[in-house]
Each structure stands twice: as structure tokens, then as C-alpha cells.
């Protein structure tokens, strides 16, 4: 998989380049597929069972909170200081994509505010080097889903309804399962459209 590097907001539309040759002979293709399955099924069976159990949530939490390049705390910003979500994620009210704030926006406050803290120094490091911060994406939808932030902000859906109580989290994790079931439940409750193409593209 090759991710599009130009796409600044993590949309999958940049496209995925896959390597399977469309010009291969179908029968050879099938044969290869069968042998692959055999290897997976027989040799890797114990591993498979382990992953299955692990995936079932017995051993660990379903929603991980990956370490970010800067230990940014939503709890401090959105919780303690009550900064509105849309102050930093501005595009949510005018675009399908909420996006993340530019480094310039972070520096707008942090040139002075808490400039001596180690994490803020890291931020300044990125700014001084003129490097964007390689955040790790927590929330996302698959390529076949078209989700629009602006439509939901306009319909007065609160951010936490999908993103969970982010303002209580030092390190953000996916506290809410963004499944189709959840989308549909909410759409039904609010009498929003449940037509397939409202969300599927």
C-alpha cells in the first residue's frame, strides 16, 4: 500500500496502489490463492487462534491510545482550559474534513504560553525545523464511506457523540465504536436519511 503524501488530512482518497497484476492468468492466480490459504490455515493456525482471542478483547482493551510525537493533552486544552473543539479543528464547520491545526496555529499560543514545558519545546523544535508534526490518526472511516463533518456540525451533533469524552483524555483513544450500527442508530433517532448513498460513496 502506498499512501498519498500530498493528502494533508489523512483522507484515503489519495488512493491506494495495489500490486496484483491484472494481466496474470486467472487460473494461476487462483492456484496461488489456494496455496496461500493452506499456509495460513495450517502453519499459522496457533497464531491465528491467539489473534482471534486477542481480538475478542479478553486480554487487552479494544481501543488503543497510541503514543503521539508530542504528548499533547486534550484534557488540558479542551478540559481544563475549555478551548472549543472548533478553535483548533476549524475546518469541521466548513468542510467534510475536520483536519488538525497547522503548526502555526499551535505556535500562535505557545510562542509565549508554557514555552518552557518539555512537550511545548518539542513543538517549537518542529516549528524551528519547519517540519509538520507526524500525528497518528485515531479516527477514520474506510474508503467506501463518505463522512462529512460540516453536515454533522450544522445538524448540531456534538463532537463527543462520535469522538467520546476527548476533553477527559490525556492521550486520545477511540472510546466510541464508529460502526455502521452506531451511525444508523443516530440517523434513525434524528430522522436523518438512512439511504445507503448518504454515507456510502
Amino acid at each position, binding site marked *: 500500500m502506498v499512501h498519498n503524501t500530498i493528502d494533508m488530512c489523512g483522507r484515503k482518497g*489519495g488512493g491506494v496502489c495495489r500490486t496484483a497484476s491484472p494481466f496474470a492468468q486467472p487460473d494461476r492466480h487462483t492456484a496461488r490463492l489456494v496455496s496461500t490459504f493452506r499456509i*495460513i490455515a495450517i502453519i499459522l493456525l496457533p497464531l*491465528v487462534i491467539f489473534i482471534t482471542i486477542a481480538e475478542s478483547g479478553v486480554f487487552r482493551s479494544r481501543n488503543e491510545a*497510541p503514543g503521539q510525537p508530542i504528548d499533547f493533552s486534550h484534557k488540558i486544552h479542551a478540559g481544563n482550559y475549555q478551548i472549543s473543539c472548533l478553535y483548533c479543528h476549524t475546518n469541521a464547520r*466548513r468542510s467534510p474534513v475536520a483536519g488538525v491545526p497547522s503548526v502555526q496555529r499551535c505556535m500562535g499560543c505557545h510562542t509565549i504560553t508554557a514555552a518552557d514545558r518539555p512537550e511545548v519545546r518539542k513543538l517549537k523544535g518542529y516549528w524551528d525545523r519547519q517540519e509538520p508534526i507526524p500525528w497518528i490518526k485515531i479516527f*477514520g472511516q474506510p474508503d467506501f464511506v463518505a463522512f462529512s463533518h460540516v453536515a454533522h456540525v450544522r445538524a448540531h451533533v456534538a463532537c463527543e457523540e462520535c469522538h467520546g469524552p476527548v476533553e477527559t483524555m490525556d492521550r486520545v483513544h477511540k472510546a466510541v465504536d464508529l460502526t455502521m450500527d452506531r451511525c444508523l442508530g443516530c440517523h434513525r433517532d434524528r430522522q436523518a436519511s438512512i439511504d445507503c*448513498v448518504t454515507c456510502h460513496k
Partner: protein
Amino acid sequence: MNRRDFFKLLGFGGAATLTGCSSQAPEGLIPYLVPVEEIIPGQATWYATICRECPAGCGMLVKTLEGRAVKVEGNPDHPVNRGRLCGRGQAALQGLYNPDRIRQPLLKDASGQFKPLSWHDAEGWLAVRLKELRAHRQEIVWLTPHLTGALDQLIDRWLRAFGSQRRLRYEPFAYEAIKAANKLLFGLEAIPTYDLQSSQLIFSFGSDFLDTWISPVMYSREFAAMRTCEAGHMGRFIFIGPRRSLTAANADRWVSVSPGSEGIMAAGMVRVIIAEGIDRGVPKGEIERIKDLVDRYTPHLISQTTGVTPADLEGLARLFAKADPGLALSGGAAESGRYATATVAAVNLLNYVTGNIGRTVRFSPLSSLNRLSSHRDLVALIQAMNDGEISALFLSEVNPVFSLPRSAGFEQALDKVPLVVSCGSFMDETTAKATLVLPTHTPLESWGDDESWEGLYGLMQPAMEPVFGTKPLGDLMLSLAKRSSNSRAAAFTEESFYEVLRNRWRKLHQRVRPETEFETFWSEALQRGGVFQETHPRRISLNLGGLAKAFQGLQALARPDNLTLLLYPSINHFDGRGANRPWLQELPDPLTQLTWDSWLEIHPEDAQRLAISEGDLLKVQSPYDEIELPAHLSAGVRRGTVAAPVGQGHTAYGRYADPHNPNAVGFGEKRRGGNPFALLPFEPEAGSGGLLLSTPVTLTNTGVKYPLASVSGSARQHDRGIAQAISPAQLRPGEPKPNTQHPTPEARQMYPPHEHPVHRWGMAIDLNACTGCSACVVACYAENNIPVVGKEQVAMGREMSWIRIERFEEGPADRPGTRFIPMLCQHCDNAPCEPVCPVYATLHNSEGLNIQVYNRCVGTRYCSNNCPYKVRRFNWFTYPWPEPLHLQLNPDVTVRESGVMEKCTFCVQRITAGKAKAKDEGRPIRDGEIEPACAQTCPTNAIVFGDLKDPTSAVSRLSHNPRRYRVLEHLNTQPAITYLKKIIPANGEVSSLEFRGTGSTHNELNT
């Protein structure tokens, strides 16, 4: 554990493995350092520019998302194309993102291999050479394609600074004969404005104005406007020529004449008109002179040479004289044969004696194509190269090694030039012979301007940052001039080409709008795509002396003993420059329905005589060269004539054009027909210096079968009534409307009827407007991330296009009429595909769309089997987009993977966006606001989309048009697409210009 439990676990384990795999690797979320003012992520930004895929100079809008271009559309403000684009224009994106673009400068070493080097070194190397050339006062030549505006001026200025002035604007199709004939007859070496729209009758002597001739998007629009039934009148169109081109296929009548006899046909008609005194406004004194000149073109002589009977010729002449106004055009083979200038002169004279000069043929505004170099200039250049007069040759985006006849010897002459520098985006046959290759920006990355017609000043701006480390040609020239510093080169004080451009536009500003601030003028021009001015009419008069000179030697070509080969520019690849765009390779040629290939069209009777059958690989020998081409049997060429499209047969142009490229994809078997340009004679036409596009050939069957990939099943409709037609007489109110379909049974439904509470989207397609140009097909590829599958897959019927142009033949087998019909998902109200889907992946939605949910589809293909229109496409594989072609993908449309069914969605992403916009602005959706990609680009506005629930919408009105019908209606599918029957005059009606159609209801007939 018993066997059964083992399998259960195995199945469970397999499923779990897949679940495990689906958890994605961490994805980055990269912010801007400083937000870009023009970009809101997720919102499109549009930039106006000019299309440079051919010399027509259409206005173009580029849609960019997060800084990358994803779609191009016509610029509605540009007078040439008014918002529409052809298929080649749509494919401009695949030039920008072409995986075969040259990425850094290349210098040929002693072993003849290209070695990459840095820009600094490359420019340094070249600057040293330029200094030497200047010191020794040696000649430098620039060879560019059709160029106008600031870059054109800069090149001239640059050459002067180096003490040279030889400069060629080279296009293989340069309309030399039109210019020469106009010079002789009217004293103006120019290409005039042809007004198709106001004509009552068009005679085209070989001019393929709907294919590639001069400005096909503009002429398509005007032609369709002429053919609407507005005010109860529909213009007639008769094509005279040896081959049924796309343009000829749209004619009411195709008069087949032998190649080279178009001129005497026109002269014969002039003779009839003068003899019968039905001319219009010709002064008495001139009549006698004209009469003398055309006296020998008797109907008898013409009938002997062309096979057109005297009565027919007289009928045609009388008809043309009656048209008020008419328009006679000459082009294609007529304009590039041995008597090209005389032929065009005869056609001009036909226009003159019927009073069309000044009415439908106007010498204002003139096309800037009149500045093109002629083929004769190229031949002279080759001579100079061979004589060692040329010390350095600079080439930019031209490929003469490919597009000049091999007998011209350009390739050999290149070896005599010590320094050959190629500035362009692609490796091609000519660039491969260069010493130094300097990769430049594509037009979508460049600043520039374009003056396609007098008064139309188009402005080009970069739509995105350069994809690779290329440089703009203008900047490169400035930098070279400065680095090879000499006193005169120091006159280049501009920092960049952008400054050169702005300085030129400052002068334009002073001329056209001095009252405004320059910055205002500039930014308005950038937004609009240029400044468009009306021009003043020019008065011209006939020069009788010139006329006599032009007519010298006009006679029909002696019929050769062997076959005559006729070459024509391909609608997909033009002169070959479109051959490395995968969309254009996969796009079927509208007439032959063939993909990925070149071919030789031969009449079935000739084929039988020579024991040739479809797909035989033939050795084609002209007096100059020989190539191999597969045979395609077609009644669309005259007996004794064979025809081949140019554009294919590349040997060094990238993976989609050249089967021998190391990365070649899509060809299947590694063989492809040769380059037909090679066969042509190099001698220019005597009168105009133009390139001759025909030559006598002999054919030898090699006995090898060559697989041609055709998308056509049968050329005949077999009484299915798919593409229907109606005659003007039948359209009159009260006349019975014929139905060539099976009777429609009483509608029966197993399921409750669908409800469409708010909208019901529908489409109307006017077959009388559709010319079959296939622009819609390419637009759909671009908009909907449709993969290209390659020749072998196409041959297996696995092409993925969501919309296709079906071509049907009607009438006698030797002279069939042609009908085109765009076929796409009909979004049936009672869709046969829906009830057979076991997983509910395809269903009818509340707005009348038949939708396909990709993530639900399991690939049973039942839906496709049950679709009577055969518009569903199955992903047999996950098809690749070689980098960086994937940057073009539309993020609003899913990229499908193998095992999934897909089809036309009516561009649901555009519907969603249109609804969201209307909702944001608190208003209902406006009719015409939502346009699928196909309808948006259609040059003739044949496709209309809208809401059937709104009785005032254009699509609702059209769906009550007396010409309406729905394809395969008797199957009770209840399609959402209404087709309007093509209006085909019955035999007697072609020769009548009367069409008093439906009287008061004529507005409904308008499209």
C-alpha cells in the same frame, strides 16, 4: 478432534485471520505548517487555464483537492468551448501524472546512453555550448508546436539574442492548403471563422470537423445547434469524401467520391450554379471569368471520375444554391492531396458564388493556426540540417521523427546537427535522439497565455505544484540566456517567465482596458481564464487572377492501379501525442469500436478480392516505406481506398504507447501495428507546401492473425430498437409516430411501487445531438476512478467503462447509415438487477437511483447477468494505478477492489454535493445545477440531467418530447433515461431544406 471439527476450526481461523489483517497500520495525520490561504482541506479549488492537448485552445478549469489536480472541465466563460471538453482534453491529467515523465535532466554520454545529471550541471553544460555558438555566429533553430503569446515571443527574442532567427511552429496537420487558397483567392493567408450554426446546409468536402479539424469542440457545439429543430427548421449536412469518418457518420448523406476528386466535384457544382444562373450576388464581370474557369468540369466528366451521376451532381448543386446561407468546408483528405490548394480554392469558389463568403465564412476573427510552419518549411529545415548549416536544434514538445514521413529523413538529418536539445515532459522518438534532455513542466503546471483566435486572449496558470523536479520552459530560457552571458543576452532583465507574461499582459491591459488598475485586470483575467474581445469584420474581395492560378491543373487524380491509402488523425490520439494516455488507449474508436491498436480499414469487396479477412496482419507497402497493420473490414471506406488512423506505432513514448517499453502494460501480445506516417511521400503539395496524407499502396497478407480488441458485439440492432430514429415528416403533429420496438406489455409488478418523496433523478439523451465523440466516456473515467484493464481484458469483454458509445449500422450493408447511442446504467424503476442480489448490495433508493454498495457486494455477478443493458462491470482483478497516476483519483469515489461489481451512479457524489450546497444556502436545488461528468463535458449538450419530480425541469420537459422513447421498454424495466430519437430525413427529405415540424410545440423539440 474429528475431521468435521477440524474444518470448522479451519474456517473460523481463516475468518479470524482476515479480521486480524484488516486492522490498519497507523495512518499519518499531517498538518500544514502554515495553512495555505486558497486551500480548505476537503473543499475543491478551481483554477482556470487553457487546454494544450491540441492547438484548438479551449478554456479549461482544473479542480484541485489539497493541492493536487483531480479533474478538468471546460471553462464556461471561454468562447471557444463554452464549458465543454473533448476526450483528449479530459485526459490532460494523464499527461500531468504520467508515470513515464522525465524526472531529471539527461545527457547522452559517449556510448549513446542517457545519464541523469543535476539542473545546475545541465544548464552549465549547455551555457558553455551556447557561448561557443554565439562566439562563432552559428545558427540555432527552435522547433516548437503551435505557440502563441508570451512564450512564443520569448523564443523569438531569445533566438535573436543568439544571432539566429530560424523558428518553426510545427504541427503535422497545419492546414496549409486553406491558407494558400485563401491567399490566392482573397489575398489573405488565413484560416477564417466558419459559422456552422447559422447555416441551413453544410457540404463537407472531407473536413472532419467533429473529429479533429481545427476546433472540434466548438464545431460540435455549432453543428448540434444547427441540427436542433429550433423554429421548425433543422439544418442538413452532406459529406463528400472517400471515407466515412465520425463527421461523415453524422451526415444526412455520405457521397462517396474517390480521394482527390473533391475539387472537381466542387468545381462541377459551381459550373451548374453559374450555368443555371442560381448564384447569389456575384458581379456580372466575374461571372464570365468564373464560367470560363469551371467550364471543363462537366457533369459527364465528374460522373466518369467519381461515380456521382450528372443528375445527382446537379441536384446537389441546386440544393446548395438554395441554402440561405449554406456552408462548404474542405479538409482532411481533400486538403492534403496532390491538388489540395486547387480543391480548397474550388470549395471557396462554391461558397463565393452562393454568397456565403462574409456570411458563414468570415475573415474575422482569424485562427492563430495561420502562423504554423508548413511542411515545406520542415523539408527546407531538413535540407539545411543535412547541409550542416544548423549547429544547434532546440525542440520542445514536438515529435517530428514520429510524425514526418520516414522518407523525409529527419532522423538521419538529426545526426548532422552537433547539438540537439529537447525540452519536454516525455521521452519520445525525437527526444531519444537528443544530446541533452531538459524536462519541462506540463501545461497544467505552467504559466502562459494563448491566443487561439484573434481577440481571444486565454491565460494559463499552474493548477498545482510541479509533480517532479521539472522546470518551466520560459524560466529555463531566461536562465540559459543569463548564464551564457553576452551583452545582448543581458537584455533579459526579467526574473522569471511569470514576469515576462505579466509584462505582455500589461501591454494588453493598456490596449483593451486602460481604465482599470492592472492588478484588477490581471486577477479578473486569471479568474475568468482570459480576456475575450470582439473583432471587427474584414472586407475582402475575390482576386480573379489568383483564382485562375489556383485552378491551374485542377483535375481528378488519375486512379492508380493499386489501392490508395488515406491517413487521418485519430480522434483518440490526434497526431500521436495522446498515445501514452491509458484512458485514450482503452477508449474505443467510435466507428471501428477497436481499442489499444491501429488498423487498416479496407472495403469488404477489396478484402475478398485480395483474400484478406478481419484481423489479418498485412504488410502495407508504399513507394516510400513499408509497415505492418492489421486489417479491419469496413464498408466505411470506398472501394479502391484503404484508410488508417495515425497516432499509434510508437517505438519510444512510454509504457502505454510502446509495446517494447520495459514497463509496457496493457498490450497482451507484444506486437502492434506500425506508424502509418512512415508511408507518406515527403514532397510537399505544390500549391501550398502541405503534407500529403495519401499515397498508393500495395497490400500483402502475412498470413499472421492479429488479435484486435473490439468492444462491439454486433453492428446491427437485430430489431431491438436500441438506437431509434424518426423522419422530419413523421414529427409533424398528427402524423403517426412509428415505434420500432416490441409492444410494451401492461406494467406488472411483483413488488410495491417505489416512492420518490423528494427527488427522482433522471436523464434525457438526445440522439440527434450526440455525435459519438466519446468525450463523456473519458470524463467518466476521470470522475469515477475507473481502472484501465488492458487489451487482453478488453478482448474478453472486461472493460470497465460505465458509459460507452454504442455504434449501430442501419440500411444496406455496402452503404450503411450510422447511429450512435450512449449506453449507461438506466437506473430502472423496476430494475432486473435488484431482486437477484442475494446480499442486497444493489437496490433502488428514495431518489430513484439504482445504487451499488461496494462493501456489501460479494461478487456473485447475478446482477450483471440479469441486466438487459449490459452496463454492469465486474472487477476481475484489483487494477493498479502506476505512480503517480494514483494522485488523480477522486477522493469522493471509492477505489474498488477485485471481486466487486460496479456501474454508473449518476455521479452520486455530485448529487450529494449539490444537495449539500443547496441546503447550506437554504434554497431548493436549481435545475441544471447538478451535472454528472458525462453531461458536463458533452460538447453538444446531448445529455441533460435533472429531477423528474420537478415538472419544470429540462429533463421532465424532454421526457415528454414527441421523439422520446426508452431502450428495451418492453422488458418493463421502466428506465430513468429517456432517449430522443435521432432525426434522419428520409431519402426525399435530404434534398428538401423544408422542415416545418411541430409548429407551436417546437420549443419542446429544442434541446
